[in-house]
């Protein structure tokens, strides 16, 4: 019981902090405000890890730390029902990590009306924690919107060039996606005849009486395109690079790093296990569109000259791996996709953070005008190079295991093997644009702009807070990269329970496949 309240507090602590910053705090630069902000950001992080260490891998109905609070909507089957399972736990910790890093960085930044900015960031943070901690589907959706709206506001106020048009485009697009998935959720709830609007009740109801194949196909389509838009599935991705290009650092970090994962989380947690026949019908689309993400967007990424756009496109590209991982409908593929989600969330947030640091030194995002960062800011250069290498899947970083397990899952059955040959081309493409970025920015003779920045305003290497924020993210990437078991054991268990209870066929290879990761532990 105590732990479930701890879980609840990870949602309301940032929320209260957000309100305090919005209403009461006038000057963020005072010691008190900073202390409040830092503790508000680090408490959820600490609590998340406490919960992690008390996580029981075999809970009664699949969820740990359950908490059910009445909401007044009981007649609709809606409760504030919180809990964590092996799928949401990694993402929950991911959002605590990225949230800590983003808020800490924002607290010491120079944005105008900083109190509003930090306040909105906190609200977004709280929404993120809520999204992944919700068992109840109404709140699952509610918290997502709760985090989405501050994103729009932040882009509107603190965004870059053409922020109004971009924010509007992003709002309409994402709301459309969210709406489609909400329709899917409601349809699923209606058809299943579940007692309450939550995942446990749905599962029980669907096990007793699965819904018809035609209905499954239709509902799955809603999920595929609704969630797909939210995760920038090709060709519904156009909002992403522009949006991230215009978004302020904190918003970009939280959105690209965590909030975007909502869609894939929905597919992983709800759509695929609950609609097995629907997923079979639409599976080929997951694979094809995922390949579109990897190959088409991969090549588009190659052509980018703007650093932030490049990161935005690369993040769209890497979502493709997660989609094809899901498209295998095996535990191995789903596990790989989950691992990749966490890894990608950390690495893309890190890249957005560092791109802002780099911008401060060059006063431009155009990579052709950069160069020689290595001479002026060696620490920043190392962080940036490592972040890029992590995102292109160098072993030792979490991303590698995600991609690797997905590739292994693709080869598992003859029918998806052709996807592997194409998808693996992505590792070459990403190496090319990643190293080109490092080459253009870090290597070469120091450009005037960066030398001037150092001379005039004393911006040389990273300062303490930049280092702190980047280390939190990079450290987590390394932790999972060296020891992927941190999450994989728990998620495998949940995935096995969830996927084997439903009618998804499993071959024996799966169980062996999970040993792939264990083999690593030998060394």
């Amino acid at each position, binding site marked *: 019981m105590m732990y479930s309240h701890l879980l609840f507090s990870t949602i309301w602590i940032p929320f209260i902090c957000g309100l305090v910053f919005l209403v009461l705090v006038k000057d963020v630069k005072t010691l008190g405000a900073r202390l409040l902000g830092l503790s508000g950001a680090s408490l959820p992080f600490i609590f998340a890890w406490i919960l992690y260490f008390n996580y029981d891998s075999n809970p009664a109905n699949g969820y740990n730390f359950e908490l059910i609070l009445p909401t007044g909507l009981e007649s609709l089957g809606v409760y504030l029902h919180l809990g964590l399972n092996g799928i949401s736990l990694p993402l929950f910790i991911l959002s605590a990590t990225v949230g800590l890093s983003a808020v800490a960085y924002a607290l010491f930044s120079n944005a105008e009306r900083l109190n509003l900015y930090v306040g909105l960031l906190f609200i977004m943070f709280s929404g993120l924690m809520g999204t992944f901690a919700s068992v109840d589907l109404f709140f699952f959706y509610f918290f997502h919107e709760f985090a989405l709206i501050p994103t729009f506001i932040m882009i509107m106020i603190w965004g870059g060039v053409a922020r109004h048009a971009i924010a509007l485009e992003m709002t309409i697009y994402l709301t459309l996606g969210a709406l489609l998935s909400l329709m899917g959720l409601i349809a699923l709830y209606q058809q299943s005849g579940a007692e309450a609007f939550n995942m446990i009740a749905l599962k029980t109801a669907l096990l007793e009486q699965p819904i018809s194949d035609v209905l499954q196909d239709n509902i799955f389509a809603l999920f595929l395109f609704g969630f797909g838009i939210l995760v920038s599935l090709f060709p519904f991705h156009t*909002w992403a690079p*522009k949006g991230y290009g215009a978004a302020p650092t904190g918003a970009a970090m939280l959105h690209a790093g965590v909030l975007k994962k909502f869609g894939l989380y929905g597919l992983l947690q709800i759509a695929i296990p609950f609609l097995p026949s629907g997923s079979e019908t639409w599976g080929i689309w997951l694979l094809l569109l995922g390949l579109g993400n990897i190959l088409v967007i991969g090549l*588009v990424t190659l052509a980018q000259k703007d650093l932030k756009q490049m990161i935005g496109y690369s993040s769209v590209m890497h979502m493709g791996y997660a989609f094809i991982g899901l498209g295998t409908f095996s535990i191995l593929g789903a596990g790989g996709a989950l691992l990749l989600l966490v890894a990608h969330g950390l690495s893309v947030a890190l890249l957005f953070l560092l791109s802002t640091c780099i911008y401060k030194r060059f006063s431009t995002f155009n990579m052709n005008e950069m160069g020689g960062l290595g001479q002026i800011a060696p620490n920043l250069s190392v962080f940036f190079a490592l972040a890029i290498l992590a995102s292109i899947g160098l072993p030792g970083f979490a991303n590698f295991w995600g991609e690797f397990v997905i590739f292994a899952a693709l*080869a598992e059955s003859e029918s998806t093997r052709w996807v592997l040959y194409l998808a693996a081309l992505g590792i070459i493409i990403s190496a090319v644009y990643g190293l080109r970025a490092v080459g253009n920015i870090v290597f070469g003779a120091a450009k005037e702009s960066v030398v001037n920045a150092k001379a005039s305003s004393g911006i040389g290497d990273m300062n303490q807070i930049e280092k702190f924020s980047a280390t939190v993210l990079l450290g987590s990437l390394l932790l999972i990269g060296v020891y992927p078991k941190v999450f994989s054991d728990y998620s495998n268990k949940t995935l096995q329970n969830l996927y084997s209870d439903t009618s998804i066929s499993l071959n024996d290879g799966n169980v062996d496949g999970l040993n792939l990761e264990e083999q690593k532990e030998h060394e």
Partner: protein
Amino acid sequence: MVSIVALCIVTFSIGYMEDDAAKGRFFAGVAFFMFSMTGIILADNLIMIFLFWELVGFSSYLLIGHYFQKDEAKSASQKAFIVNRVGDFGFLIGIILTYWQFGTTDLALLSVKAGLEPTLISSFVGFLLICGFIGKSAQFPLHVWLPDAMAGPTPVSALIHAATMVAAGIYLLIRIDFILTTEVLTFIAYSGTFVALFAGFCAFAQDDIKRILAYSTLSQLGYMAAILGMGFSGIALFHLITHAFFKALLFLGAGAVIHACHHEQSIFKMGGLIKKMPITAITFIIGTLALCGVYGFSGFYSKDAILIAANDHNMTLFYCLVFGALMTAGYMGRLVWIVFFGKANSEAASSAHEVKPVMTVPLIILSGFAVFVGLNAYWPFGLGASIVSDLDHLHHLSNYKEIHKWVLILGSLAWVIGLSLSLLFYGRGSSDDHLQLKFPKVFAFLKGRLWIDEIYESYVNTIQKPFAEFLSFADEVILRGIIVRGGAGLVGILGIGFRLLQVGKLNNYFLWFFVGLLLFWLYGIDLF
């Protein structure tokens, strides 16, 4: 072997890198490289090998890009990593397919299973697996990164491109040779021989001391691959070990020369160095003799074994390899004559002096190995089991004596002719290349390395880049501009249209009311 060589190289580096500002980064890179390299060697399954394999690629990226201010280092390090990635792409798929086919990637289990069920072995997977080898060992057509990688500090070249990293590819093949089919092995043998010859030709046209050594490494790797492809992995391993010692020695010697000449790398700007730096010169010459396979030096034993085995296996390849040996002696002779004899050709060379003991001692140790490692062939118990069995196999050939005689004669002829021809052309020391002046076209061709680089570059520039730009354009304009925005535009136009209807005038509304009524009526009498 790796650890001994690495120890010598690191000691040498202390001297070589003394006036470099970023020593810390350099040694961190080297240490990380060693970590990954020993990882590859100790790993007992393919996945672990792949993991360290990539890490080796990464640390070599760091080390090649050490002088990061230079554009040359930037492009060379990127090229090395990306080209390796291309190889790893195949390797990774190969590993995954192996896993699903055999149910394991553990090498010991794999060899048992492959023995029990030979039908599981497929050429396709084999070809994928050797992609990794082709990338890392810089075999054709992924050899382009190795000569460029000489942009890194010289000890790095010694470590990575002579002794260890490129050898990792051969090592991998030796570990997995039981799942390679005959077709794959034959392919390796022919491509190895081709590289051995091709790189030998290229070495003639270079004037950068490190590039000459780089091509020589390529050609020696070709030898190893060739013999491995003929099924004698033990002999390949033997040559791998002897080669690592003398090639590291040569690279460090070159490093010492470069250090003494104030980072001058063109051989035509050196000359007469034997008087100024005798220890370096003598050790370098020992390395050269070992490389040429002169009787008594370590290179002799391994090259001898290779030639005997090739003679037994495939005569065409045998003659090619003998010719390769001749070329080896030729370009190495050219290098030695020009650098160490004759008169100094530049300021830097005339002011050169012997380097510090911290650099010469590793040279002396390595030259000791370069001479004596080969003797292991006589009491082979110190070597691995596979080497012993392969050598045994050769000794028990029915016509061993006769073959051996032939090979001895041909092999010796090769280096004698090679060295003397080069003496003839370059013996007096010179500031420019006589041969180049005589055959400028041939040299330009060789210097262009068969234009493989250009082919890749033009592919990137004319196909891949415009295609990427086009996709980017399509993404921006067609998808985002027309389809997504178009949707918004359509709604907008509809909105404008509807607003026109709502003008607030009564007679206007009446008009539309009657139009509607008319339409209903027409519909009612089945006109539509």
